[in-house]
């Protein structure tokens, strides 16, 4: 349903961040994009959602195809209307608006839709938000803000929700809860999910298909089961050595050497 073909993204006309990246997201699936800092994960999402412009970035080559039409040159508002919604990194709730106003802002593209029932739907997934509906969003806890950010995405009825590091800065317990809810949204609403993560274990547990990025390219992809068996993934992303024990810190140097080979 969503296909990226050899896309290149350049920032400020000089920095080439994505160097011919291709990936495919099938309808109704959860797809995870893994990679270390600076690999270009967020850039990939922004290239899809049309949010590169405020960062002075541009898709210079390749194509982004959604439902058979090219969307690389469309602006962000059109892409939301087509059904792709990005939940940005760091939650980005509107701090001075209340929870419910945040959700209304999320429903901006759904003029004429039934706001009340959409709101109830979001509240069934995030009952905590209902309790805090009239509170200023800036004063919510980090977990609640992440819930609000995802709830806000649901309000637009997207067919694809792209989540940029939903685990960022949250306690492990909350991260587990958020991922359970994401899975529920995927199964019950049929929403396709493309999630960017640094937390490999989480991503491998939740996803149907996983892509691994290094330096602006996809270097590996496969089902979570395949990747969990891949020696490189076990070593670099799960921190396990061949025998399955935790690896010693001394061997970390090896990481860089192997990584160079990978990319």
């Amino acid at each position, binding site marked *: 349903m969503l296909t990226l073909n050899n896309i290149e993204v350049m920032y400020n006309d000089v920095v080439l961040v994505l160097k011919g990246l291709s990936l495919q997201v099938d309808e109704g699936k959860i797809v995870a994009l893994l990679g270390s800092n600076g690999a270009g994960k967020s850039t990939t999402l922004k290239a899809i959602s049309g949010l590169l412009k405020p960062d002075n970035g541009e898709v210079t080559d390749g194509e982004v195809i959604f439902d058979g039409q090219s969307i690389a040159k469309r602006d962000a508002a059109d*892409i*939301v209307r087509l059904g792709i919604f990005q939940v940005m990194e760091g939650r980005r709730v509107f701090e001075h608006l209340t929870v419910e106003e945040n959700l209304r802002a999320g429903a901006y593209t759904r003029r004429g839709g039934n706001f009340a029932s959409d709101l109830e739907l979001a509240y069934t997934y995030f009952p905590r938000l209902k309790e805090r509906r009239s509170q200023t969003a800036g004063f919510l806890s980090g977990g609640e803000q992440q819930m609000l950010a995802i709830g806000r995405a649901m309000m637009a009825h997207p067919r694809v929700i792209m989540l940029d590091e939903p685990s960022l800065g949250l306690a492990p317990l909350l991260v587990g809860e958020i991922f359970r809810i994401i899975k529920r949204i995927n199964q019950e609403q049929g929403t396709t999910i493309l999630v960017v993560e640094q937390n490999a274990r989480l991503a491998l547990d939740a996803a149907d298909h996983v892509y691994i990025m290094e330096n602006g390219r996809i270097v590996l992809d496969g089902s979570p089961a395949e990747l969990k068996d891949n020696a490189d993934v076990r070593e670099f992303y799960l921190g396990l050595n061949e025998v399955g024990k935790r690896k010693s810190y001394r061997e970390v140097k090896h990481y860089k050497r192997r990584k160079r080979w990978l990319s």
Partner: protein
Amino acid sequence: MEKFIQLSMSGVSNGAILALVALGFVLIFKSSDVINFAQGELLMIGSYLTYTAIEQFGLFWPLGVVVAVALSAVAGVLIEQLVLRPLIGEPVISVIMITIGLSSLLRAIIGAIWGVSPLPSPKFIPTDTINILGASVGANRLWAIGLSIVLLTALTIFFRRSNDGIAMRAVADDQQAALSMGISIKHVWAVSWAIAAVTAAIGGILLASIFGGVGASIGRVGLLVFPVVILGGLDSIPGAIVGGLIIGLLQSYAGGYLPPELGMGEVAPFIILIFILLVRPYGLFGQKIIERV
């Protein structure tokens, strides 16, 4: 006592007009970070257009006012599209310089169309005086107060309840996040300039009635927007309203009670401006950044 009531009424009516004008200014600043030095000229555009509609085209005055306000809104949107939109992403200082240039340009255009000498106020809002507790107050001042209350309430409801209002506040909070949910920032900017032009036009019309003439003196009131918004907080809508009333009253009392040769009526707002900048630069209601601990 009569003097007090008289001064209070004129202070409140001036303050209400200032609040309206400041609201437009705050709106533009909130949604696009533009400090609009041409706010005073928007006032003049409104009052001159009303003059033309009523005196030159002979429209029935409520209709004339509506036409003038609508044309002002169009002017506001045009200014945004032609002058400010090409400046997206340019440094703040360039944008400020552009609005200063814009104010000179607009003044010149107004001068070219209507001439530079003041015109008589169009006959519209009744100007006869009404006796309140022994003080005589112009009916046009009561109009100013009433109309401002209605407009400010309407706008407050607009920001709280309507989709566009919430979108505008969302853009003020986090532009990129607003963009990510399909809110069109260009649309929001156009709407905020339209609203600013409308409130300024209505302010200008009310001032024309109170001053008894249409001329550059209306534009000078635009300068008073700065003490109002600095006092209230540059990005606060309630701040604009409260700030407007305080500055209006202060100006009126300072002018009425202090010796007129000091000219304190003119100066007092700017003394406040400096004082507020020294002790509380974000103003009474300005947004401080919410920090979760």
